[in-house]
């Protein structure tokens, strides 16, 4: 598989660079990544709170989507219970780090420890569900996980001591080695840093860690086993892949990703509310990975960014957009409706025209460019898409 990937990449290199020896044409890739990385690091110095919050929501969504993509995209298991694990991470952190003297139950643990334990807790919850996750396949698992959403919503609304009920509970501030990520202003290079500026870097570190870990898993032996299960579970079993164990394991990893995403979301929200963690949220995560590209880490990040930022940006700039009307002026569509149409349309478009999602866009474009050149130089068959489950 990795040989194949290397070959694909060799084939996709622009012909000019391909002629001049290995490595010399690669300078573009690290430079682009470097520029993106620097921009991400510099954002808190330039962007207003709106954009930082939006970006942080996208980062949290990206972490959750990577987890779901490992489960659904790479292993072919449908889960509608992602919102449950997000809620578990968010509320788990609140309970573990919460003020013991506050209105809701809190254990008062150090916040950093609470983050780790909250993620482990969602992992345990995923583990408890894994006997089911290991046995059921594809859509059947989706139906089973639906139960988690309803149980979760019931508990969130009614376990007042634990969750604060309908109005939710306050999220304790993150504190890492004495540095508190609160709203207090500290001035860095002339720019005042408040909660979102500080959290931005936490989000970046967590997202980077999650991306690297997921790539490590997907590109290694476990990733190949997962893809084998997705493509043909009997063949995978015959080749010695313990199918049920793998399915259970991926479910646990995916729920831990959701848990971490939930913690980050809670830190951004500053108050967790049960209405957020509904079935709609699970569906949004599925939309993210389909739009972004099933089975690819970059795709999950792209899809999460698209789905989580679209409604916010549309609403903010509704005055300037055609067809979209500012709230309350009547006629046309409200921005919230338009964003639903937009990513509904994006899901359909991705399924019909771009089976690999946004992540395949550059490759598809390059393939088209090459197809215009004289035949004979064409690389490997990029129409065949290994990353889409049957």
């Amino acid at each position, binding site marked *: 598989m990795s040989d194949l990937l290397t070959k694909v990449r060799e084939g996709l290199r622009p012909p000019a660079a391909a002629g001049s020896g290995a490595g010399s044409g690669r300078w573009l890739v690290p430079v682009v990544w470097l520029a993106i990385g620097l921009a991400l690091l*510099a954002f808190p110095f*330039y962007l207003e709170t*709106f954009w930082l919050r939006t970006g942080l929501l996208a980062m949290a969504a990206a972490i959750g989507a990577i987890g779901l993509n490992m489960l659904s995209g790479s292993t072919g298991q449908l889960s509608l219970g992602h919102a449950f694990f997000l809620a578990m991470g968010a509320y788990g952190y609140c309970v573990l780090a919460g003020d013991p003297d506050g209105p809701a139950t809190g254990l008062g643990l150090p916040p950093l420890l609470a983050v780790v334990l909250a993620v482990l807790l969602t992992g345990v919850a995923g583990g408890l569900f894994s006997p089911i996750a290991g046995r059921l396949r594809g859509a059947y698992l989706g139906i089973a996980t639906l139960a988690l959403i309803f149980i979760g919503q019931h508990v969130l609304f009614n376990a007042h001591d634990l969750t604060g*009920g309908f109005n939710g509970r306050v999220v304790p501030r993150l504190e890492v080695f004495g540095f508190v990520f609160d*709203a207090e202003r500290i001035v860095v290079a002339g720019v005042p840093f408040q909660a979102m500026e500080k959290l931005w870097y936490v989000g970046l570190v967590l997202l980077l860690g999650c991306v690297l870990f997921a790539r490590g898993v997907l590109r290694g032996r476990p990733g190949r086993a997962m893809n084998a299960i997705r493509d043909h579970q009997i063949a995978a079993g015959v080749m010695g892949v313990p199918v049920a164990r793998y399915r259970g394991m991926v479910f646990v990893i995916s729920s831990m990703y959701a848990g971490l995403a939930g913690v980050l979301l809670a830190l*951004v929200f500053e108050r967790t509310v049960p*209405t957020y963690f509904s079935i709609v949220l699970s569906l949004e995560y599925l939309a993210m990975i389909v739009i972004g590209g099933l089975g690819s880490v970059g795709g999950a990040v792209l899809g999460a960014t698209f789905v989580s930022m679209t409604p916010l940006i549309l609403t903010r700039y509704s005055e300037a957009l055609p067809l979209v009307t500012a709230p309350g002026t009547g006629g046309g569509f409200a921005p*919230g409706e338009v964003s639903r149409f937009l990513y509904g349309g994006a899901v359909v478009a991705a399924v019909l025209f771009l089976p690999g999602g946004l992540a395949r866009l550059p490759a598809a474009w390059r393939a088209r460019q090459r197809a215009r050149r004289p035949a004979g130089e064409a690389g490997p068959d990029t129409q065949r898409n290994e990353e889409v489950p049957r």
Partner: protein
Amino acid sequence: MNSKRRGLPAVAVAAATAVALTLTACSGKAEDDGGGGSGGSGDTASEGDELVTGPGVGDDTITVGALTDMTAAYATLGASVTQGQQLYVKEANAAGGVCERDLELVVRDHAYDAGQAGTFYAELEPDVIGFSQFIGSPYVAAAKDSIDANQTTVIAQAWTASLLGSEYIHMIGTTYDIETINAIDFLMNEKGLSEGDSIGHVYFEGDYGENALEGAEYAAEQVGLTVVGQAIKPTDEDMTAQVTALARDGVSAIIVSAGPRQAASVAGVAAAAGLGVPIVGNNSAFAPQLLATEAAPALLGEFYIAAPSLPIGSDESAPATLAEAYTAEFPDAVLDMGVVAGYGAMELFTEALRGACDAGDLSREGVAAAFGELNAYDNGFGVVNDFSAPDAPSSLESYILKPDAEAPGGLVVEAEGFVSDLAEGFPRG
């Protein structure tokens, strides 16, 4: 290939980071004078005498924020409230504005979503003097720290007691607990409910229904009634099971702290089952559209609504003028309680701005102080409000309304505004 890529940028990253950091000197976010956190006061407008201004106040405009929901659970309410506010802003600007400035209403639809509500609050907060509308009590509660720290005055479109206690968050009228107590008082005095009877209470899970239930349980304990609670979810629309259970328990009245659809279902099922008991809903349990459904005959029977102000269909001058102006401005829109709530909130906010202007302090502190002065505010909708005590609702008064197919907005007054003795004695703490 990995090894090559890895080695390359290490030094470059460090160097470029340093460059990026020095570049931030040009950032628009950088502070000029290091005078951080003063809340932006100190700009003075040359209007003869010195007027202190703050965020949201320019030379010609005063910007007010509105965080609404026009796509999700509260879409109907949000649309009415927002249009009511836009109508008031238009009228006020036509009449010369406030403090020689035009009002500008910036509306954001947060779709009742935690991510969007907080984000739009964060977006608008630095540029507005306050919020004349904030739908969604959980999100108001989430923003409470920031509201208190930045002294941003907010009028929340919610009537739940959980938001009481901040001098910057205001709600207009009674909270649901008091409203329910008044409703029970009405049932005892006018509908023959007496000690020893039991009443059914169909309520939403969540702060609206649970707050109402608190009121019902308090009133029941005081006068010797039994409350039979039926918790429902906003997605439950068929109330057959609940009403059947209440009928089996032999209730003498039903209180509905839910949405219009649930109220209509309760009334319809009760009528069909021959359960002839009076039904009272909170103000959110009615929408004029219901009178065009097959539940209409049941609703026109023994069905009442407790509300914090006169209905828009009243023939008093303020509601009648508003109804006429609103219909002229938005011919297709529905006249409901949201119009009164929105228009009233904007009028109240503007009143506070005028007070702040007269005091020469159009900063956020000035607006908050002006709100504190409004201890007998009457906007012509039948209730006198007191905004000087953060721990108490602005009024304890309720009107009892009755559906009427002929009236604009579908409601007419059944019992004039009153405060029950029970409500006076309700402990707040």
